[in-house]
């Protein structure tokens, strides 16, 4: 029976809670309601209100409370409900969650998971569609993870809960209802290993989370032009799999990085910089970025103009071809 990404995440928490009594799930509306996206559905019923519970509506409080619980040996999995609602907790994440291991020379560590449903494409109103991964990836001490497949959703969340470090777990809202025939439990590659979702020899598309299906679609469409495109899914932004990226781009010589987040000072910029540092002499064209625009995430009626789709990716691919033709001309 096919299972959705939301169900896979639910199963991951359920299995983790069964395996380890110190795992607790809390946040806003995660208990009785089961989460606004039903990701925590049934957990309170199954494990009781001590294990899955609603908190006051206060994101900083939720994150700070989790720090204290983690100091007492619990493994909190907290939900931030929507991407932009996590900003009030930013200080807790940046100043404490990320730094407490370092501050205390390893004496205190806070193994916790901060689940953040993120990204657009679902017709959400303001503050419901941000891609905030760059903010977290920029903070030393936080791991940042984002699944693109149902299997990874389960496996990466289990690993995040088991991880001794705090993990910001970015859940692509747009992919919550994508389904797979995968049977749970499933284990995929671990943190820090990218996955080549489609092999190809001409161009590397680098994507993660929300943009992986779009990149795959673009790669498929490009076969009509006779192009053989490879798609790399990063899976985890921190730690980052430099080796797979370098291996792929070295082979193809061309690369486009695709992110839904606005591009300026973002993950895309980091990737392009790393690629030119490591693959400069293998490159046949400049590394390009396809990203959202540098505007606040637009209202729902505009979002299809904002989101990097197949056409925008193919346009970038064309620009790479142009670079190549000019060289050989």
């Amino acid at each position, binding site marked *: 029976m096919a299972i959705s990404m939301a169900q896979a995440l639910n199963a991951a928490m359920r299995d983790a809670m069964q395996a380890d009594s110190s795992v607790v799930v809390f946040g806003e509306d995660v208990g009785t309601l089961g989460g606004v996206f039903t990701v925590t559905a049934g957990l309170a019923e199954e494990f009781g209100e001590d294990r899955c519970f609603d908190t006051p509506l206060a994101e900083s409080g939720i*994150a700070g409370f989790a720090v204290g*619980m983690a100091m*007492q040996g619990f493994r909190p999995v907290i939900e931030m409900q929507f991407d932009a609602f996590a900003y009030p907790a930013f200080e807790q994440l940046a100043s404490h969650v990320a730094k407490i291991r370092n501050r205390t*020379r390893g004496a*205190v560590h806070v193994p916790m998971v901060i689940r953040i449903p993120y990204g657009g494409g679902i017709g959400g109103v303001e503050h419901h569609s941000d891609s905030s991964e760059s903010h977290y990836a920029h903070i030393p001490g936080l791991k940042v993870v984002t699944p693109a497949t149902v299997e990874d959703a389960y496996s990466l969340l289990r690993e995040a809960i088991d991880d001794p470090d705090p993990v910001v777990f970015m859940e692509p809202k747009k992919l919550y209802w994508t389904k797979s025939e995968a049977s749970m439990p499933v284990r995929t590659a671990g943190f820090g290993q990218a996955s080549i979702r489609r092999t190809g020899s001409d161009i590397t598309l680098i994507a993660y989370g929300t943009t992986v299906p779009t990149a795959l679609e673009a790669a498929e469409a490009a076969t009509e032009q006779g192009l053989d495109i490879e798609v790399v899914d990063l899976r985890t932004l921190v730690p980052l799999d430099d080796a797979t990226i370098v291996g792929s781009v070295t082979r193809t010589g061309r690369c486009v990085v695709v992110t839904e987040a606005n591009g300026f000072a973002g993950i895309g910029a980091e990737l392009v910089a790393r690629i030119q540092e490591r693959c400069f002499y293998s490159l046949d064209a400049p590394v390009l970025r396809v990203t959202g625009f540098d505007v606040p995430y637009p209202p729902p009626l505009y979002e299809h103009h904002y989101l990097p789709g197949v056409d925008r990716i193919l346009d970038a691919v064309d620009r790479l071809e142009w670079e190549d033709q000019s060289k050989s001309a």
Partner: protein
Amino acid sequence: MSERSAPGRGSGAPHPDAGLEAATKNEVQHLPSDSPVRFVTPDGELAPRAERNGYEFPSEKLLLSAYRAMVVGRRFNTEATALTKMGRLAVYPSSRGQEACQVGGVVVLDERDWLFPTYRDTVALISRGIDPVEALGLLRGDWHCGYDPMATRTAPQCTPLATHMPHAVGLAYAARRRGEDLVAMVYVGDGGTSEGDFHEALNFAAVFNAPVVFLVQNNRYAISVPLSRQSAAPSLAHKGVGYGIRSEQVDGNDAVAVVSVLSDAVAFARTGRGPVLVEAHTYRMDAHTNADPVGRYRDASEAEEWIERDPMTRLEAYLSAAGVLTDSDIKAANDAAEDFATGMRPQLNANPEVHPLEIFDYVFAEPTPQLREQRSQLEAELAQEA
């Protein structure tokens, strides 16, 4: 003077102005006394009984240990300030004048309890038995926290305001879930009560009935901003009332009152009756830190007034008059404080050992490939320098 009583301290008459019965109960339970609870006058004499607001006298033993710790704390403040002038500490936020609060919150705790201090609470740390050199790690620049929080049950000193408060609530709640009856004592300043995390922590503590005692050291200034710009509430203790938290205000320069009210608060929290907020009215006699031009925002005359209410002389006068403290006890306490200060001096005068590669050691449990690369880079740089 109010004769109102808080729960757990005998019966209290309902507030005469109260309307609804439920509201009456709530007000009687949670409202602080009209003026700060006091046991000893600034002259060291016994204050009128009514000013105790029903609280009990602490034991002589507790008061004597508080006195000795305060003498050490005062000496420590002087020494640490001197060390900034010698360039041995990067900065020192003095708590001179706040010794009753620094010590009072610690002497009422058991070993099992947790302390959540701020950057100004180094005297509280040493009162808890933390090695002074380790306690000064943050301010000296050795590392962000010089002691082991798990071993000492003392959280790292928090530099951002009030952000440690939700940690204390989560920890206390989690401990109770595990069946431990520990209490978390959280220190925060008057400025910190304006921060969002102060309010989120209070609310969480009340909703989850967490055994936490919030000690607000109202020293009247947040760097340069006076209390009048910080809050329009009748008292900072009133801030607990809206969250359903039992709240009290105490004369923070009267060590007897501080110890009494906090002992009561800890007992209340420990027995599962919920969190307590205590506002201690005190005064920061020194500048915010050694780097702060205090003369730009307050008159010297103001500090003079507070010197007359010095918590040290006040407790000493009271204990002496009560026959609990002899001149030789006072001398012994001062000698012990002097030994403490001179004992830490050579260690702080030595240049701290710094291991450059250690900066990579505790970012994650296992370093990422990127951190390994950067560590190798620094290692190579160090090898070249050598």
